[in-house]
C-alpha cells in the first residue's frame, strides 16, 4: 500500500535542519501503524510528507502503485481528495459549516452537489462516530472530542485508501482520547481501513498493529508485525523489507 524509500527532509534556513535523514519502510493494506518518537524525532514531518502536505527533499513515496512525488500540485490535491484522509491534531474543521456539512464537503467536491448518497453516507459516518445527534451543530458548539470525531468522519467520506492522523488525541482529555482511539481501532478492524497515526503516548501502542519508532529523523526500531510482511526491527533506520 505504502512504500517509502530513503525519504529525506531538510528544512532550509540559516541553519538547515534535517528532520528526516533517510527513512524507508512499507505499510500493508489494512494496517494500523503508529509512528512514535520523542519530540523533534521527525514523526509529524514524516506524516506530512506521506500525506502530501509537504514536499520531501529526497526519496520516494509510492502509494498504491502511484509515485506520488511525481505528481503536480494539482494532481497531489486531487490525490489527497480521492485517496487520502487526514486528521489533524487541532480538529481542523471549517467553522462556517455544520458537522454534517464538514463531513460532506470532500464528497461534495469530488462528486458534485447531486451526490445525495454522499450526503447520506456523511450522516452514516457521523452516526458511526457517535454524533448522529450533532449533525447540524457548528464546530464551536461541539467539544474537542466531538470535533475530532467529526474530523475522523470527514477523513473517511471519500473512502480513502489511507487515513493519516497527526496526534489526534493530543488536545483531548483522556476519556475523549480513548473514544477516538477506539474508533480508529474499530475502523481498522471492521472496515479494514489503513491508518497511519502519529502519537507521543506510549500507551497508544495497544491500539495499533505496528509501531515505527523514530529518533533524530531515522527509524530507531519497528515493533509488531503485519500479516504478509516480514518485519525487520534493525535499529539502522531502514525499517522493513
Amino acid at each position, binding site marked *: 500500500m505504502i512504500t517509502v524509500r530513503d525519504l529525506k527532509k531538510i528544512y532550509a534556513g540559516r541553519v538547515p535542519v534535517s528532520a528526516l535523514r533517510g527513512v524507508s519502510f512499507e505499510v500493508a493494506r489494512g494496517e494500523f501503524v503508529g509512528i512514535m518518537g520523542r519530540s523533534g524525532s521527525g514523526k509529524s514531518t514524516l506524516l*506530512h510528507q506521506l*500525506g502530501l*502536505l*509537504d514536499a520531501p527533499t529526497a526519496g520516494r513515496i509510492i502509494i*498504491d*502503485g*502511484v*509515485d506520488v512525488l511525481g*505528481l503536480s*500540485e*494539482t*494532481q497531489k*490535491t*486531487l*490525490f*489527497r*481528495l*480521492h485517496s*487520502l484522509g*487526514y486528521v*489533524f491534531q487541532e480538529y*481542523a*474543521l*471549517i*467553522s*462556517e*459549516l455544520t458537522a454534517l*456539512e464538514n463531513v460532506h*464537503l*470532500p464528497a*461534495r*467536491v*469530488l462528486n*458534485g*452537489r447531486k451526490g445525495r448518497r454522499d450526503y447520506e*453516507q456523511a450522516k*452514516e*459516518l457521523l*452516526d*458511526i462516530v457517535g454524533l448522529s445527534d450533532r449533525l447540524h451543530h*457548528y464546530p464551536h458548539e461541539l467539544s474537542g472530542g466531538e470535533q475530532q470525531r467529526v474530523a475522523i468522519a*470527514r*477523513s*473517511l467520506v*471519500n*473512502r480513502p*485508501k489511507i487515513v493519516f492522523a497527526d496526534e489526534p488525541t493530543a488536545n483531548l482529555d483522556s476519556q475523549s482520547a480513548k473514544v477516538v482511539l477506539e*474508533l480508529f481501532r*474499530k*475502523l481498522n478492524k*471492521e*472496515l*479494514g*481501513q489503513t491508518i497511519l497515526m502519529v502519537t507521543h503516548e506510549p500507551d497508544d501502542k495497544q491500539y495499533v498493529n505496528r509501531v515505527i519508532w523514530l529518533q533524530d529523523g531515522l527509524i530507531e526500531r519497528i515493533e509488531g508485525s503485519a500479516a504478509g510482511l516480514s518485519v525487520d526491527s534493525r535499529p539502522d533506520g531502514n525499517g522493513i523489507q
Partner: protein
Amino acid sequence: MIAKERPPPGGLVVIRRRAPERQPCGKLSVSKSYPITVFKNLKTAAYLAYKTISRGKKAANALMVFIMSLAFINLVFISSILNGVVVAIDRQLKTNVVSNIVIEPQEEPVRKDYIQRVQELREDIGRLPGVAATSRHYKLSGTVIFDKNKDGRSVRRGSQIIGVDPEIEKDFSEVAAKMVRGRYLDGTGSGDIILGLDLAGGPGASSTIDNLKGADVGDKVEVVFNNGVTRKYTVRGIYQTNFALVDHMAFITSKESETVIAAYDSASQVLVRVEPSASEERIMAGIRKLSPALVVRPWTEYSGMFSGVSSTVSTITAVISAIGLVVAAVTIFIVIFVNVTNKRRQIGILKAIGIQERIIIYSYVLQALFYAVSGVIFGTLITLFALVPYFASHPLELPVGSISLALNWTRFAANIGMLLGAALIAGCVPSWQGARENILKAIWGS
C-alpha cells in the same frame, strides 16, 4: 462504497467497503482519473462563498455592502452631477441662445451684416422635414444707461440687445416663461425693453456682475446702440433664466430693432429648432441647398467657452471616477485580504482535505463579487429613488442654470462594469496569495 450493517452485540456498527479501485502502477493520470469540471469547481466555490457570507457576521456583511454602495454612489453621483452641469449648459444654449441650428449672413465673397428676405427663408426652412420651428434674432450691441434717482448720476452698462418677434419667441425660448417681475414683450411694444436680472441688478441679481443697480419694471432706460442711434425704453419686465450669459442681455422687439438699424424683413440670425428624432446634419444640408451663401452652423459651435467647461468637467469626472474606483478596489482588497488572513488556517485545511486552489480563489472572488453586486444594487436603488428625485426637486443653482443629476446610462453601465472588474481583481489577488501558501504554514501559521 461503505455499507452499514446491523451492529454486533456490544460493538460498533460494521461498515463494509467496496473493493478500492486499482490505479495503474507508476504512471497515473490524475486528471483523467478525477474529472472535476470547472463548472463543478464553481459550484463548490459558490457553496463555500455562500456559507462564508451567510454564516458571517450580519453587521459586517451589511457594512461591507454599505461601503460598496457608497463607493458606487460616489462613482455615479460625481459623474452625474458634473454631467448635469454640461447638460444644463447645453440645454440653456439650445433653449435660450441658439437653438439647434443657427443661420448667419453670408461671409464670402462679401461679408453682409444681415440675412435678407427672412420671412421667405423661414417659410422655406419650415417646409424641410424635421424642422419644428424657426425664429429670427437681431443681435445688437449697445450701452444701457439708467439714472435711478434721476440726479444725473447714471449707471452705464454694455450689453447685448436682442431683437425678437415676441409671439414667436414665446414658443422658442424660456425667457417669456422666466419673468420674475413685470411682463414679456408684445408685438407692438416698440418702446419696451425687458432686462435680464443680472443686467438690471437689485434683489436676486448676481453680485459678481456689474449691473444697473436696480432697474425695475416701469423705469426708463436709455440705450445707445453701437451704430450711434439712441433710444429710450420703458422696462416692461425683468427675467431670470439662471444662465448668466442670457441674464445679462436685454430684449426688444424685432420691429423696434429694424427702426434702429433701418432694416426690414432681415435678421442677424435665423434659429432653427429641430424635432427630437430629426437629424441636424440632414437639415443643415437642406438649408445650405436652399441658400448656399448663408453660413449654417450647429449649436455646438456656439458653445465656445462652454466647450472648455465641458471638456474640463469630463476630465474632472474621469479623475474623480478613477479615484473612486481605486478607493472601491482598495476597500474590497482590504476586506478580502483581512478575510483571507483570518481564514489562513481554514484555507490550509481546505487544501489539505483536497480542495483545489482554484476553488478557494473562486470562492473569495465570488464573495468580492457578491459585495460589489450588492453594492451596485443598493447604490442604484439609492441613486434612482433617493438622489435623483431629491436633486430634481432641489436642484443646485449655478450660473449656468439649475443643476440636477444627469445620469449617463453608458457611463452608469461602465461604472458598474468597472466596480465589478475592480472587485474581481481586488478579490483575486489576496485570495490567490492566500491559496498559494504552503499548506503547513497556513495551518500552523509559521
